[in-house]
């Protein structure tokens, strides 16, 4: 039997993202911030917080997104070749404080792949990690800098993030088995 527990609704998600945006600016006041979303929902979330971030930071913040399919560490063990989405990084990353944005932080493998992907475009000054949800169960020594909401989960739970732009609604739900 599986059950679904709502964690964030539309308002909750908005509040969490707003808090993250504030944190990013507060903790990096003098940095040349650049925003990089992880395809696909991380990229959507990055675009959501981008205007607020520019407003708070008081200057232009370049934004891009990366697809990590070609950087995964499990390419050989998946049943079929993954769909590779476009990567858009049309600004120089060298010297920037690159904030990687993703929806859920779990094992840390996606973030590791995203860091590799960013490095393929140059050498940033710093890389920071902002996530909507941290559900724990890390397999790599990776820690988020900015978290919208911490969600305790069991290993075999699924955390489903929906965004209006892709899924038609905003919500975060834990599906337990």
């Amino acid at each position: 039997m599986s059950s679904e527990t709502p964690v964030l609704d539309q308002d909750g998600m908005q509040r969490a993202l707003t808090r993250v945006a504030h944190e990013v600016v507060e903790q990096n006041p003098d940095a040349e911030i650049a925003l990089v979303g992880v395809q696909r929902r991380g990229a959507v979330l990055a675009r959501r917080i981008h205007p607020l971030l520019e407003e708070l930071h008081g200057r232009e913040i370049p934004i891009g997104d990366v697809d990590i399919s070609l950087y995964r560490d499990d390419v050989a063990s998946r049943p079929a070749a993954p769909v590779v989405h476009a990567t858009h990084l049309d600004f120089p990353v060298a010297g920037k404080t690159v904030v990687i944005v993703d929806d859920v932080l779990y094992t840390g493998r996606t973030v590791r792949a995203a860091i590799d992907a960013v490095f393929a475009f140059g050498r940033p000054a710093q890389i920071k990690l902002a996530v909507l949800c941290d559900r724990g169960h890390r397999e790599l020594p990776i820690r988020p800098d900015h978290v919208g909401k911490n969600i305790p989960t069991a290993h075999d739970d699924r955390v489903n993030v929906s965004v209006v732009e892709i899924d038609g609604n905003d919500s975060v739900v834990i599906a337990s088995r």
Partner: protein
Amino acid sequence: MKDLISIDQLGRAGIERILARANEVSQVASREVQKVPALRGRLVANLFYEASTRTTSSFELAAKRLSADVITLRASGSSVEKGESLKDTITTLSAYSPAAIVLRHPCAGAAALVAGWTDAAVINAGDGAHAHPTQALLDVHTLVNRIGDLTGKRIWIVGDIAHSRVARSSAVAFGLMGARVTLCGPPTLLPPGIGAALGCETSTSLERLGEADVVYGLRMQLERMEGVAIPSLREYSSYYMIDSGRLSSNQLVMHPGPVNRGVEISGAVVDGPHSLISEQVASGVAIRMAVLFELLAGGDVSKQHHETVMA
């Protein structure tokens, strides 16, 4: 899909899938680090029984951009006739556990045979005059990127049809994408039954070349042609050379290379604004990356417990 043997196996949907993938992976070349770790630690073995600098280096570069290890084995033509059999060579090569074998062989059907002898993904990089599917994919990729949908477009493939695996693969691929293909060449280089076999029209004259949206010239094998299939290259050129006098300004020109300037195609046309020849070369690496990724990423069911780990 374990292997890529001929273009027919892909169908239109398969071709489009690989073209889309090629568009994404081609971005890698524009990054500061022109390399992604997708195939790290896996071996791609190029086994070439015929010399082809262009195709080997294109496959090598594609594999390296995906971080695969690459070995290239070149067997001389004579060792095909005598000495180690193809099967023994494959058995030996299999000891290195390659993830993919890229095979160029003078015999039709060689890649299909090899696919039955090895667990590695087999990519046909040319089997005799039969098939060269990655060439066909890069041709379609180049053309679609330039003119979009090929439905209803008329494509003339001109030259030595008889000995051309490029003609056999690309004609089929263009056809699958909705184009209408005409095969044109001297009667001695246009085998009986080829039109019906490939679903194309045939012509021995360039008279109606004006109807073509795209003119695809084939390389003449100079050394084996003269005095045999054609009386002379001079006579061939006078009837079949693609030059600006025979082309109108809205016709595009393609050629698989290497070009014999002034034989099958004039230098001015090769270098002219309607030539897609250098785009074809550039597409080659992206298409081969896409094919390697398509065949080598995924498929190992025994390791699927990793799959859920990466959310």
